[in-house]
């Protein structure tokens, strides 16, 4: 039975960590643009490496 004394607080603590993380995410606008977030993963932010002596002309 004494096991419950620390197991229950650990279980609740882990739940709380998850809740706090969720609240932070929701408050900081992580869920404001679900469509954009899903599509941004496809946006290629890499630019080709500049070749010798040339300036980067990716734009």
């Amino acid at each position: 039975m004494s096991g419950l004394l620390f197991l229950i607080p650990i279980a609740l603590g882990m739940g709380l960590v998850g809740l706090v993380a969720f609240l932070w995410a929701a408050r900081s606008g992580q869920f404001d643009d679900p469509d954009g977030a899903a599509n941004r993963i496809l946006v290629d932010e890499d630019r080709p490496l500049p070749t010798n002596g040339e300036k980067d002309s990716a734009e």
Partner: protein
Amino acid sequence: MNQLGSDIGAGCPSGLAPSEAPIMSDPSAFVRRVDGQNRLSLTVRGAKCGACINRIESAVNALPGIETARLNLSTGDLEIGWRGSLKAPRIVSAVSALGYGVSPRDDDRSVSDEQREERGLLIALGVAGFATANIMLLSVSVWAGIGEMGETTRTVLHGISGIIALPAIIFSGRVFFKSAWSVLKHGHANMDVPISLALIIAFCVSVSETLRGGEQAYFDASVMLLFFLLIGRFLDARVRRKAHSSARDLAAMAHRTVMRVDPDGKARSVRASDIAVGDRILLAPGERAVVDMRITQGESDIDESLVTGESLTRSAGPGMHLLAGAVNLSQPLTGTALAAASDSLLADIARMLDAGEQRRSTYRRIADRAVSLYVPFVHTSALLAFIGWLLAGMGVNEALLIGVSTLIITCPCALALAAPVTQVVAAGRLFRSGTFLKSGDALERIAQCDYIIFDKTGTLTLGTPQLSGNIPPEALEAAARLARASRHPLSRAIVDAAGTGPLASDVREFAGLGLEGTVQGKPARLGSSEWVGADGSSGERSSLWFSQEGEPPVRFQFEDHVLDDAAVTIGRLHSAGYGMEIVSGDRAETVARVAQTLGINHWSAAASPRDKVKRLEQLEAEGHRVLMVGDGLNDAGALALAHASLAPGGAMDISQSASDAVYSKGLSALPRLICVAKQARKVMLENFAFAAAYNLVAVPVAITGHATPLVAAIAMSASSILVSLNALRLNAMRENL
């Protein structure tokens, strides 16, 4: 004049939204300065996919001095921050040159009320979910330990559950308490009243049970109830927010800026709302008039297709009236404002939209009707159980416990999920086929309609003139070299037919007459018959003449073609028993031709926005439920007032926001939408029937005192899951209209 580079591959590359013609307006009046940084909020229309984000953000980032540029794909908001001397119009033209529609936006609307509501519900849902999971953890051990667990351990576990439940119920339950209180004050009752009552009584009874060391505490059941109900609310709020509210889009229109010529002769960019009657206004080529005005100076061609439904352009000169919404095509025009922005046609239509929105808010959804039957039922059965057991000689505590368990188990988890889950699944299915649903109850209203009114231009036809007949390829190519320099719709039709290619040298455009330039060393003209010196009937607006030195003039004829799939779609709707009618603002002969081609017997032409609304009201008075399909500014009022309404993706933004759904990929979306709406209605009714059947079983179980917390938890989650699974069936259903 050179717009050619931008026309190639313009707009959303996924094809989900059509590209918009670059229409310039100066947003300088909307630039804010925060900490030395210039900030501008823009609303971008037509961005639908990941490639759009990339194109728009990199185009803006390439401008000098830009520090932040971020597009929110869900709302279409583009937030830009920059330092230095960069002028705001350059940012707008960088985005509009890509083929997207752009208008400036006031900052105080960066987070809309709907968005805030949705975020609040999401947080409440998260808290309720946390509490449910953790209390369930403790409850399962209580249930598993029946017979073995000592009373002290059980009471401690119940106590911890109560400590978790209290803040969760107070925080997440506010949504229901607030709404229940606000209707109770007026002496009414809605669904939130029994929900709030169940939450509060269940919690209080469970506390007293815990203090007495009893076996049954309903902490788990009450937070689980809260969790399921919040899922329904959240889905409902999300569907509603996706419906860009009409007010928001209309305001974006009214926020367009106007070039005002001040008494000192200087042109200054001001907000449309600052324009007073009598102000001098400069209307640049490509710009849309925001207020009604009378032209005092300049000659130009104007495109009024979105205002009146007229598919051909007309020439405008001093003394003529120009309605808000008309686009100036060729030369700058100066005029005096006849009305302030709040009195113009645009504002008139805004009032019609308001009236439509009010009429729609009185629509009673199936869910509302189910709830009004349900509320008295829940209350009476719980109260009867309590009084009955009391009279049968049971103690107050036990009788109260049974009454509470009845209240909890009959509480409407399945009912709360039945409609929103169905709407979300149906909206998702329609979205995949290119139709955007704007509100959940739109499905119900579309399913009820039995009569369809179509606008002609842009709805049954392409909306832009197309070249018809055979033209010698050399003449077409030569004419296209002139036409590429012009924004006139007939010129664009020639360019569409000829494709990309070189431009003639020194091209000049003469409003109302045509173009002149040098093609392959020889002077050439494209325009009306008088302009090229050909003998044709003058004033004929659906043809152009092209002449080149030393060669006979060639005639180009244009027609607004009926959409490819229109005939098939109309046939399908006919056989499904729908009454149909065309109400158009265009000339009678054009409308008659289209009606005949499609086999629609009822039509009327030259209809003003008011005529359209009148015809609609006449039909409603005859007992029809009318579905309106239209795209123009002149349709917006009728769209808002119809029982249900649809707009094609190329429609004017006001018309899109006034309608219940926006479709792309042709008219064939119409039967599909009607079919899905009918299926969704059927599934929704099934879900309500299931919820009622569930209660028929659950109430006797609860009244006889068999609804222990374990039974309540299983019954509530099982019914919610069943309802959701039934809604998912919508995805697998076949179209059968």
